């Protein structure tokens, strides 16, 4: 029982991170129908930039804030200089542009921070809390708590602010939104910035638990992508549920089946989901127009 609880704790922690990454995918996908393969690099940049600012002598909180701002700017730049100029290109071309961006960011991070793993101190202490015989890291509580706050904040953003409603409008019908006077370009810029900020936050939260390096983005990004599709591409609740389901499944598989094949869980799940219910758990039932 204690063991099950232990796996559940680590599963929910990782799952919350996947959920944040998946939300980032969903934000950009909804606004622009682009799958941003550089999403994982936002996560990496957030973690490493915080490590950099802390090393430069800043306290953790301002360092984290600066890192998030920096990644938001990177998100803006990605939309402005790489995705927007290629508007109208095919899905494959845009996939390759964002993959190019991810290689570019990885290369940049490698130049700035080197190839080593870096460690960020835990926000509040390293002593695990014992619950029902299972150990829970205080950092896990930070991960879960902040993710929950982000979800509530996003709900408020989309439900009650003009910018959020404009984003929803663009995701429903781009042309109609444009005709209502919404600047689509500004919405797209916002979606990339927001998504960059979410990614960076995820990277900062997880860095004290898993260490961080210029390469961590690839796997986190791909698994976040899996979570987004498992939940239903473009669905907010879907991204959260997808992330948690994947995180827990991964922890259980690592504990009870084989830790060597832990990384395969997300990808097996994605194949099963895509073949059995292509729209994902919360996906819209697609009808094809000819």
């Amino acid at each position: 029982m204690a063991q099950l609880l232990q796996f559940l704790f680590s599963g929910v922690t990782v799952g919350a991170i996947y959920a944040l990454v998946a939300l980032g995918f969903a934000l950009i996908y909804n606004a622009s129908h682009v799958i941003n393969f550089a999403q994982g690099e936002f996560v990496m940049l957030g973690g490493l930039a915080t490590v950099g600012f802390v090393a430069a002598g800043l306290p953790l909180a301002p360092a984290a804030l600066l890192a998030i701002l920096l990644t938001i700017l990177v998100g803006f730049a990605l939309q402005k200089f790489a995705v927007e100029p290629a508007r109208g290109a095919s899905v494959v071309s845009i996939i390759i542009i964002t993959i190019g961006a991810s290689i570019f960011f990885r290369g940049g991070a490698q130049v700035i921070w080197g190839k080593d793993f870096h460690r960020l101190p835990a926000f509040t202490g390293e002593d695990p809390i014992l619950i029902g015989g299972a150990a829970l890291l205080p950092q896990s509580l930070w991960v879960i708590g902040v993710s929950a706050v982000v979800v509530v904040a996003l709900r408020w953003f989309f439900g009650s602010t003009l910018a959020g409603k404009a984003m929803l409008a663009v995701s429903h019908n781009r042309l109609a939104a444009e005709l209502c006077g919404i600047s689509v370009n500004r919405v797209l810029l916002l979606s990339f910035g927001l998504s960059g900020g979410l990614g960076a936050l995820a990277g900062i939260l997880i860095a004290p638990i898993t260490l961080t390096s210029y390469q961590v983005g690839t796997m986190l990004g791909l698994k976040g992508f899996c979570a987004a599709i498992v939940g239903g591409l473009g669905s907010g609740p879907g991204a959260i549920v997808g992330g948690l389901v994947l995180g827990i499944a991964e922890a259980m598989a690592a504990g009870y089946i084989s830790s060597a094949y832990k990384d395969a869980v997300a990808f097996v799940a994605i194949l099963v989901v895509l073949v059995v219910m292509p729209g994902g758990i919360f996906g819209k039932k697609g009808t094809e127009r000819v």
Partner: protein
Amino acid sequence: MAGFWTARRAGLAALALAIAVLPLLLPNKFYFNMAILIGLNAIVCVGLNLLIGYAGQISLGHAAFFGLGAYASAVFSAKLGWHPLISMAAGAVMVSLLAFAVARPILKLKGHYLAMATLGLGIIISIVLNRELDVTGGPDGMPVPRIRFGDVRVRGEHTWYWIVGVALWLSVWLSLNLIESPIGRALRAVHGSEVAASTLGIDVARAKSFVFVVSAAYASIAGSLTAHYLEFVTPSEAGFLRSVEFVTMVVLGGMASTYGAVIGAAILTALPQALAAFHDYEHLVFGAILMATMILMPKGLVPTLVERFRGSKS
């Protein structure tokens, strides 16, 4: 004469000429090695181009087929003592069967979903290759025996250049023939519109899985050849980044252009070598070049240049 020298035959003759003349221009082993690697990648890309360029289906997992071919050659010939050619054939059959088994459910998907499913498949295979230490040697890789016929050992850059050159020419020839055949026309129809194609009596699912299997077999054979040439194989050959590399070669060269695939392979194989001068900045520059090319020439190099050339003539 004009009837005989169709664009297809002229192209094949030009390719044969280029392969025959190139060794005269290559100054040393370093360049021979690069030419061989370009040829091997080009074989994968010619196959992948049938899937991406002609049938309009993306695969972000083709390196897995390449890697499986390489490991089939390695394992069958090193551990079971089979002749490398038999290992290679067995690998290609195995990979084709695997591709056939997964093709129908996976190719029902479209766009991002198809990208994700092929990506997932590729990553699962590369994880298996990494983890099954007893068979594959794990992340460190394993040595691959040299091809030999009796006492004659196949070795040296010059010998391999001709082997790969002939293999590349054959794969281009096969690909061009396929494109001109009824199945090739069916594939282009599928690319245009699946619904329209099926109303014309084309079995869309069958056409798609056929081209998927063919492109997987191309990748498998190129993987086997690469393994025997390098005499070593590591799981990174089957990894996600390798898959991305192959797709990028195809798209950069120009989709639905067989020679474009070859040129894309040449550029992207040679570029990292050229960028090695930048040391730490290699990835940074590579990523920037990739983005810039796709933004400026979304259709790819060869089609864009051909259009420009035609435009300036008229």
